[in-house]
């Protein structure tokens, strides 16, 4: 057990709103068990609206109304004692944020304050967590750190709009990695970037993970990204994890029909084979279907799928899958 860094158990959370006297509950995360190891590149894949960003928020311990945790726990195991994030006070969480768990956010343009120079953003984000350094030491540290990311120190005196998209994304990566945290959560870090810059940025993130030997949790809808950087992948569908396993197992021997479909439909240079698509659309999470949430779109669904919820279980192929039909 000691090689785990973060564990979720039976995590269940919903957005609960009361609007004009109507109560609405959107079950975004429904029974997620994850065990994420130290020194691992862990990927979470899923379509828009499947709950992946909400899951990340919960992993990072952000839970504010209308989001409510209904059951389960998230435990951070990087300290001497296991720390349950939802039972901790705001002060305790503040201490581990940025030092132990940091966040690379989607859309670097929106993260950096447009009216403050880049160095001011570093002071705003990271300095409160590094009070043991003097301001001069802090600045030195930031310059060295950015040098390692191949950014010159003139970047610190620029405004975000003066930098290119790739450089801005590097700055946000720099922000998230400055304190050498044990877990870095990356939410769609390369989605808004051009292909050339995307590859460079992924190369950078991969190198950082090797150097720090820490855990990176990468969330993106693009399985081609997962294929090239992740050690293990979890596939999410409508708030549940439907399959989880080593990257090579997921790509070569997946057992869940949804995963199989996603992988089969990936376009690739040099491949003209006709790609299929799934009928229907992802379910409305305010009113998810009974049984397996994938059954209305599943080409193989049988009666049992319509009433009983499959559990995530080890399969012969080496992956864990939530499907009755997979062996």
């Amino acid at each position, binding site marked *: 057990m000691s090689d785990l860094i973060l564990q979720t158990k039976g995590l269940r959370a919903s957005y609960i709103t009361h609007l004009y006297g109507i109560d609405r509950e959107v079950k975004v995360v429904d029974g997620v068990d994850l065990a994420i190891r130290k020194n691992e590149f862990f990927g979470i894949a899923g379509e828009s609206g499947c709950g992946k960003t909400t899951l990340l928020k919960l992993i990072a311990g952000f839970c504010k109304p209308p989001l409510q945790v209904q059951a389960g726990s998230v435990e951070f195991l990087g300290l001497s004692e296991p720390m349950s994030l939802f039972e901790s006070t705001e002060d305790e969480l503040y201490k581990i944020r940025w030092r132990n768990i940091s966040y690379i956010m989607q859309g670097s343009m929106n993260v950096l304050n447009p009216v403050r120079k880049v160095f001011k953003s570093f002071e705003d984000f990271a300095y409160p967590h590094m009070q043991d350094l003097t301001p001069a030491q802090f600045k030195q540290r930031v310059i060295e750190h950015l040098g390692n990311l191949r950014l010159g120190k003139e970047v610190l005196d620029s405004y975000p709009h003066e930098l*290119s998209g790739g450089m801005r994304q590097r700055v946000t990566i720099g922000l998230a990695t400055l304190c050498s945290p044990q877990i870095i959560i990356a939410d769609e870090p390369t989605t808004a970037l051009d*292909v050339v810059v995307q*590859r460079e940025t992924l190369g950078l993130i991969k190198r950082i993970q090797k150097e720090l030997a820490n855990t990176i949790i990468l969330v993106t809808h*693009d399985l081609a990204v997962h294929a*090239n950087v992740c050690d293990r992948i979890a596939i999410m569908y409508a708030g549940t994890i439907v399959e989880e396993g080593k990257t090579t197992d997921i*790509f070569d021997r997946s057992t869940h029909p949804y995963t199989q479909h*996603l992988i089969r439909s990936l*376009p*690739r240079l040099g491949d003209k084979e006709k790609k299929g698509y799934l009928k229907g659309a992802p379910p409305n999470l305010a009113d998810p279907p009974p049984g397996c949430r994938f059954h209305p779109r599943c080409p193989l669904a049988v009666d049992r799928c319509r009433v009983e919820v499959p559990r995530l279980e080890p399969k012969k192929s080496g992956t864990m899958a939530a499907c009755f039909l997979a062996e």
Partner: protein
Amino acid sequence: MSETIELLTVKNAKKSFRLGGLLSNKEIIAVNEVSFTLFADKPDILSIIGESGSGKSTLSRLILRLLLPDSGTIALEGKDVHTMKGRKQELDYMRRVQPIFQNPFETFNPLNRVDEFLFATAKNFYSGRKQSQVKETVEMALQAVGLSLAEVGERYPHELSGGQLQRASVARAIIPNPKILVADEPVSMVDASLRMSIVNLFQDLKNTLGTSIIYITHDLATAYYISDRIAIIHKGYFVEQGDTEAILTRPKHPYTKLLVESTLDPRPGATSLADGEISTGDEEYLAVGCKFAARCPRAMDICRKVQPPETIEGNWKVRCHLYGENNAS
């Protein structure tokens, strides 16, 4: 080739924008000496590949006649866009060249029902028709994209999935029975499990309705999958164009090579992820000579001084000093 009828002819089209304030004389040429032709009797899917800021959206606006070129010609069935005047001719152009936008949720008015928008479009293009005929036109357009009025009618945009809504917006575009569809990043906002349904749809439309499609994207993988021809646009210039298969498997221009190398292969560990210098294309627009020279691994002296001319070999066109008469290697 002399027998074929030219549907859309773009010849040395150029569009520039002034940078900075009123007194600044810095200019960027967003689309520069772009030429290509679509033929009426041979429907085609032409992919235009470019990164952000390459001029691909400006080009799509030129083709849609939302902008007029500064110089060069864009002609539809032999008629220059500059000579078209008046509402009737504008409508005529629109009828034959229709857009499909990136984000289907922004295409439709969130406060109106989807079918109202489709009916309004049909009424605009077929004024004077009876309500029942309008309904029939809309139904036929929806059938062509695999939807029906029963499915999308009386629903609001937020009640449909991204994939359905993008189909509805394709249906809207084919109501006037256009010759050309201009699709600017049409799948980047659609869910992964539904993305291929839109891409396949384009192929169906080409085969069944004979519509030519200009597919503008940054994604080489889907472009390879659907298109017959491809053009790579870099800082306003078409640096390479020709058959998709040939170009993407044996790219000539160093920029195309870079793009092909950077496209992630969706097989575990198949792409080598180099963590090299950060490429910035900021100043490239203002560069003299080849705009790619600053990043090009094979740049020569001449590249920094002279814009390379187009070298033509069959239907393969490339703008690079490495090819052509000066350099037979």
